């Protein structure tokens, strides 16, 4: 084994350990305080200078994937994306990072809408509105885009919205002469990060949904034999596995492309592929589970609803394909 291979294997083992410990934590229903304080999940990708661990997007992706698999009801994705979108070289951004890393401040990102930013003294005055701000209800800071740069708005005026996916809240944000501080000069990166995060999470959703489906097929009998022996169902499951594997690969690539120019195509591509996989798997899951998958008690519909939300939010498949076409220069 070469040195390169050894290092790679070591890293894979570390990732597996991270995945396992995070999944175990999520399964206990640990609250925000423990997720951030004890496990330091929001600190993961924040630099060590700012109270974080300085891990890469790869580790963040593992955590978000497991959060998706657990249908975690917490503002982890939004806070993580908010923190990653900040440019630590800007003082206003740097000042937010320690609280985000510690989990004392919950962040959200507002990209679906528009606003104008007018300089005002040290900061800016923002006017506009945004819809579908994820985890907005609990956010102490919202990172908003005026199409060019990103601004931090603290104590935002949020109107919570009831959602189809009850495992994740949403809100609308109205900015009326709201004070904001410049926290990044590249607004597009926030969307790329959100795409990558939703993609990673969707892989988790797809994987967990497929897992319970497979478990059902292996144990439940019909016509006197396990459902898992019916070739039509076997082939369907094989196709779902292929979808999932493709999604895993596209997310794998996107997470590793962070920081390169390819991220601008790899992230929306991963979002497209992973949310389509989750959508396909979770719909098929309800079919394969039969009646039980239609009940409120079974998790199948919660996976479906999260997959549906992740697919339609932050750019639906048609919009993403259009974006890719333009970014690919076709």
């Amino acid at each position, binding site marked *: 084994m070469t040195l390169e291979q050894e290092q790679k294997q070591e890293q894979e083992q570390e990732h597996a350990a991270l995945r396992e410990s995070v999944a175990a934590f999520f399964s206990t229903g640990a609250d925000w305080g423990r997720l951030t304080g004890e496990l330091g999940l929001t600190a993961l990708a924040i630099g060590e200078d700012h109270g974080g661990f300085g891990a890469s997007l790869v580790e963040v992706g593992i955590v978000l994937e497991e959060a998706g698999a657990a249908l975690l009801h917490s503002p982890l994705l939004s806070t993580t994306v908010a923190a990653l979108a900040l440019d630590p070289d800007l003082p206003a951004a740097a000042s937010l990072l320690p609280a985000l890393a510690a989990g004392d401040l919950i962040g959200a990102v507002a990209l679906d809408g528009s606003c104008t930013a007018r300089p005002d003294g040290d900061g800016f005055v923002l006017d506009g509105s945004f*819809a579908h701000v994820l985890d907005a209800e609990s956010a102490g800071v919202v990172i908003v885009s005026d199409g060019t740069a990103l601004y931090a708005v603290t104590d935002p005026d949020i109107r919570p919205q009831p959602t189809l996916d009850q495992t994740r809240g949403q809100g609308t944000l109205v900015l009326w002469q709201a004070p904001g501080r410049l926290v990044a000069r590249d607004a597009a990166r926030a969307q790329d990060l959100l795409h990558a995060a939703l993609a990673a999470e969707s892989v988790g959703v797809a994987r967990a949904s497929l897992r319970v489906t497979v478990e059902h097929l292996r144990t439940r*009998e019909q*016509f006197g034999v396990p459902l898992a022996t019916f*070739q*039509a169902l076997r082939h369907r499951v094989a196709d779902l596995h292929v979808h999932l594997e493709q999604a895993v690969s596209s997310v794998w690539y996107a997470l590793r492309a962070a920081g390169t120019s390819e991220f601008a195509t790899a992230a929306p591509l991963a979002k497209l592929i992973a949310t389509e996989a989750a959508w396909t798997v979770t719909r098929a899951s309800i079919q394969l589970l039969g009646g039980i998958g239609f009940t*409120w008690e079974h998790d199948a519909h919660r996976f479906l609803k999260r997959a549906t*939300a992740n697919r339609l*939010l932050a750019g*639906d498949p048609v919009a993403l394909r259009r974006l890719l076409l333009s970014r690919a220069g076709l």
Partner: protein
Amino acid sequence: MAPEVSLRAADVRAWLREHLTGEFAPLVGAGGPGREHEQLELRAKWERELGAAGWIGLGWPAPYGRGASIAEQVVFFEEYARAGGPGRLSHIGEYLLAPTLIAHGTEAQRRRFLPPIARAEELWCQGYSEPGAGSDLAGVRTRAELSGDRWRITGQKVWTSLAHAADWCFVLARTDPAATRKSGLSYLLVPMRQPGVEVRPIMQLTGTSEFNEVFFDGASTDADLVVGAPGDGWRVATRTLSYERGVATLGQQLGFARELDAVVAAARANGSFDDPVVADRIAEAWAGLQGLRHHALRALSATEPDPVGASVAKLLWAGWHQRLGELAMDVGGAASTVAEAAPYELTDAQRLFLFTRADTIYGGSDEIQRNIVADRILGRTPRGTR
């Protein structure tokens, strides 16, 4: 009973316009996917109104029904749907049990049960599916024993719509524990309002309950309330499944058309209709619905029934309807992720999307329908080798 109204479209329309008012006005557009559980009491009264006017059992032969032709029944269903008539409560008795009794029942059974169905005085539910058996009717484990002149029934059914509103249930139960699978089942008519019958609503992914579990714990029924011979229940029940739908299909399709209209209206309202990719999918849905209509008309006009026609029709409409639910969500885009109101009131699009997940499962899943079609085209295979 009121004098019968003619089956000419104009007369049917006039009758509906006249009656679907006043206390029944709130029923216009009620029922439908994901709303089977709403306004039950008023809808039961509405059924009796329909029954009194002779609209139930139109196609049954005299003396129980009017012996209306298919074309005449189509007129009624199309007008009913056009008038926004509510989802029907009596259809399980009218379209599943009644044809079964006409084909397999005794004269006494017909005399006893058909008139109250026609007057909507007795509502029915279907007791086929069981937990652990799903679409595999032959896997039924509910048992019935003849004890004196009564059957004693013990077991559990699921996926039973309208069980809480029903007076009677046709139950597939194992009456010969020694016989295996298909043989040894009997088709029993069981009163619902008795000790030993418990109905528990199943909370569904929509957050509402159209379907129920029904528990039989020593419930009983008369010895002669078995349809067909004891042990012949599997044959009787599988025939019943093939009665499902039929002419009512065209009425169902007008409901589909209203749903599609709503999707088109939403696409116009939010501007997505101007996106040719969305317009293409809307056109596909529109074309698919015309196709369903043409298919139903051809099936109804056939002089010899297609032995797998019911399965083909089920696969077609269930798939179309499910895709419509998905299209409704996509047309809404990100806005489709927001519910109508807290705590969990869904939008029409969300309800359509979620509820149509069941279309390909209940009433014989897509997989079961494909088995039936394939058996016909490729020859049967032993179940075990599937």
